[in-house]
């Protein structure tokens, strides 16, 4: 139990060991520890983030689904509306067209009637003259009565009838009231 040089030897060894530990042992171990700690922390943070992301994605997908459904419903409604509109419009068109056709037909009928009337009027004149000719036969002075008839015809013309001066005879015979409406221009 003597105090001797050992004390110095121990102090020197202690110093060397501490320096070695400080330079060669401590830093790598602590660095590895800290790096692992960081890795673990990062991993945990990443998993947290992933969880949050998943939640967000789920929320988003649900919302998108909802929106899509809404959109689809809107589209269907729109289509229905449009279809109804089209039906309505076509109904309207059809009605209008029908009305127009009716109007046209009516106008044609009126025109036809007027024409027939004109023709009838013209023919009445001829018939009347022919009848009168037949009745009167000889007693009639052709030139004298012709002049009178000419006057009468002029009278018609002035009133704006459809009377044709040239080929009056044949045309009248041809354009009778029995002429069909489709062949009217040729009458």
């Amino acid at each position, binding site marked *: 139990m003597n105090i*001797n040089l050992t004390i110095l030897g121990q102090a020197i*060894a202690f110093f060397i060991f501490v320096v*070695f530990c400080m330079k060669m*042992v401590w830093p790598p171990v602590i660095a*590895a*520890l800290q*790096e692992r700690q*960081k890795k673990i922390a990062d991993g945990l943070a990443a998993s947290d983030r992933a969880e949050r992301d998943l939640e967000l994605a789920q929320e988003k997908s649900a919302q998108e689904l909802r929106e899509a459904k809404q959109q689809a419903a809107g589209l269907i409604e729109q289509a229905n509306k449009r279809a109804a509109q089209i039906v309505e419009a076509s109904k309207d068109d059809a009605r209008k067209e029908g009305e127009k056709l009716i109007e046209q037909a009516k106008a044609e009928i009126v025109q036809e009637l007027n024409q027939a009337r004109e023709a009838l009027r013209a023919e009445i004149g001829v018939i009347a003259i022919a009848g009168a000719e037949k009745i009167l036969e000889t007693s009639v002075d052709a030139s004298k009565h012709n002049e009178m008839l000419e006057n009468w015809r002029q009278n018609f013309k002035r009133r704006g009838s459809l009377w044709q001066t040239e080929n009056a005879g044949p045309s009248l015979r041809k354009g009778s009231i029995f002429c069909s409406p489709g062949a009217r221009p040729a009458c």
Partner: protein
Amino acid sequence: MAGKTASEYIQHHLQNLTYGQLPVDYERFDGTVLSEKSWTIAQTSKEAADMGFWAIHVDTMAWAIGLGALFLFVFRLAAKRATSGVPGGLQNFVEVMVEFVDKSVKETFHGKNAVIAPLALTIFCWVFLMNLMDLIPVDFIPHLFTLAGFPFMKIVPTTDINVSLGMALSVFVLIIYYSIKIKGVSGFVGELTLHPFSSDNFFLKLVLIPINLLLEGVSLLAKPVSLALRLFGNLYAGELIFILIALLPFWAQWALSVPWAIFHILIITLQAFIFMMLTIVYLSMAHEDSH
């Protein structure tokens, strides 16, 4: 203990293998008288004592340095292979130790100092390993060395006051060094002289300085002394009890040595821990500039 009395046996076990200088005209154990100063291995306790300061405990130094080297070798091996990935067994063990020491240092020491933590790790592991030698049955290794011709062999370095005192004085030097480094010479001297008693009156202050110096000086010097003696006392007493148990008949020894060894596992760990913690605390106090 062939051919020896109990007290001789105990003495033999408590004597270090000493290499030192014997003076001129010294009468050695076998009656020869030295004609000049000579360096030799002490063959008796008296020779070892007569060598004075200029002697060295070869067994203590060899075991201490060997164990310290073993500690550093193992830790260096782990440190070289250290990865931040999945640690292996050795790395895991080393990391547990390092983390334990690091935590202890961080709890106690709040400054920034790269030396403290490795210092604490070295103290803890080294002191623990040196203490651990105490658990090896007291006659195993010494007897082998006796057969090999060595007069003495003491395998527990921490039962040598030189070891604990050497480490405690190293810590003391660090305390002084950091005190002066952090607080400056005037700050350190002020801490020793103007505290705990202080006065605004100049003359009263002068009167109080020696008192303060006495109190603070004693508390400062008590640090290394208590550090050294606590470790040495515990281990020396433990070793002594193992030696005493070894005096019993061989068939009765286990009844006492096993419980004592189990209890000693706690002691050696605790003493290593206390030495480390007190070192940290003392150095932490040296860093505090609050006075």
